[in-house]
């Protein structure tokens, strides 16, 4: 039986993890390679590196982090932030990424999804989506770090994303992100019902039971969190133990 995935996300700025906690045994809490190794030890099913600056100058440093991690952590690595061309994708994959996450660039240029899928395979194209309730009973897609309403309906967009060849969707609810009151079950299930590709839940995890809840209440196949794991409030092992005790298959 396919296990539900727990995916920690490391926000990286200038080659360092943004904020972070003193993991036991990790000397430099800002060292993304050490943090990824720690998440691996805790049982992370995949690890996401997000380049929050995504500046041209900082790209090399960011990719060095991916390259070093890929030499010592042997679970799938996803790279996101600032990827807007096929060449950006190629660079990240060559550095050792297994998947590429594109968000605003895909909204502005949907062809990028098809091009990436054609050249590198659907399995490595993750489309990240930031969405928010539009006050009319639907959801709108946002771009540029969830700042700009693109005037696109979420449920139309996810169908298009699947048609263009994305291998996976990472759905972040702006309404629940940072609120820590749990994942956005309603939005997630609306998307899961529309597509046949895997959907990763993102935005809103605040406590242990939120993970089991998203798997019990929606068809999401993975759940992503950043700060909860960064700050050491929960370990991946604790999350998995809770899921397992509720009958959810985890690795």
């Amino acid at each position: 039986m396919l296990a539900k995935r727990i995916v920690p996300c490391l926000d990286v700025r200038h080659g360092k993890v943004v904020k972070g906690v003193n993991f036991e045994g990790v000397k430099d809490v800002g060292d993304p390679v050490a943090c990824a190794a720690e998440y691996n030890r805790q049982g992370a099913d995949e690890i996401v590196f997000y380049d929050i600056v995504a500046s041209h100058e900082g790209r090399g440093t960011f990719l060095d982090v991916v390259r070093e991690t890929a030499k010592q952590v042997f679970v799938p690595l996803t790279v996101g932030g600032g990827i807007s061309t096929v060449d950006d994708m190629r660079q990240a994959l060559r550095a050792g990424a297994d998947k590429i996450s594109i968000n605003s660039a895909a909204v502005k240029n949907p062809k990028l999804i098809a091009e990436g899928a054609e050249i590198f395979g659907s399995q490595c194209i993750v489309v990240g989506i930031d969405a928010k309730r539009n006050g009319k009973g639907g959801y709108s897609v946002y771009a540029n770090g969830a700042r700009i309403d693109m005037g696109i309906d979420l449920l139309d967009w996810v169908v298009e994303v699947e048609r263009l060849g994305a291998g996976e969707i990472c759905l972040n609810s702006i309404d629940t992100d940072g609120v820590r009151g749990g994942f956005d079950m309603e939005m997630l299930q609306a998307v899961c019902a529309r597509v046949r590709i895997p959907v990763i839940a993102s935005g809103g995890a605040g406590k242990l039971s939120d993970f089991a809840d998203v798997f019990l209440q929606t068809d999401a196949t993975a759940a992503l969190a950043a700060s909860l794991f960064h700050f050491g409030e929960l370990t991946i092992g604790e999350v998995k133990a809770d899921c397992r005790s509720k009958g959810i298959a985890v690795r």
Partner: protein
Amino acid sequence: MIAVIDYSAGNLFSVSNALSYLGIEHCMTMDADAIRKADAMILPGVGAFPTAMESLHGTGLVSTICAEAKKKPLLGICLGMQMLFEESDEVTPCKGLGLIPGSVHRIPSQKVIIPHMGWNELEIRQDSPLFAGIDLPMYAYFVHSYQAFCDNRYLLATADYDGQIPALVTDGGYVFGAQFHPEKSDEKGLQMLRNFAEVTK
């Protein structure tokens, strides 16, 4: 020395990273002589079947790989595993290497999410040196939309995904194929690669 066949497959470097980490001597090569001299071969692969077969034919190595696979261990990974079979109908009908009888078709279930992406548990069907030192259950990392169809005698392990997906296959001789990515399957996947290197000795 393991020859990792370089025909620009996407997971070439992941495989190489894993072998380096394990201290297993290997080279990434498209040279027929290097393949003939190697103790074993690994055929990586991600993406679409016909494109990958075309790239592999482009290297001129197909006949060498097939001849050497009678004499030394070969491990196909993911698409590289599917390429060991006779044919696939992904995108367009296309011949594979024909080292294991069987064919590759889309995962038939209408109920499951496609691609089959994530960690699934291996169900062991036959014992193999590749399982040495691995404590069960073993979850392995899969990502694919097509699967092999072959006789049970070629199955070493399967994974349940609303139907049995051939996960680890063999021709009964030197040829092995993993539908999952051992190089991305954490400690147990690495152990399997270590076991493959042992088989070559």
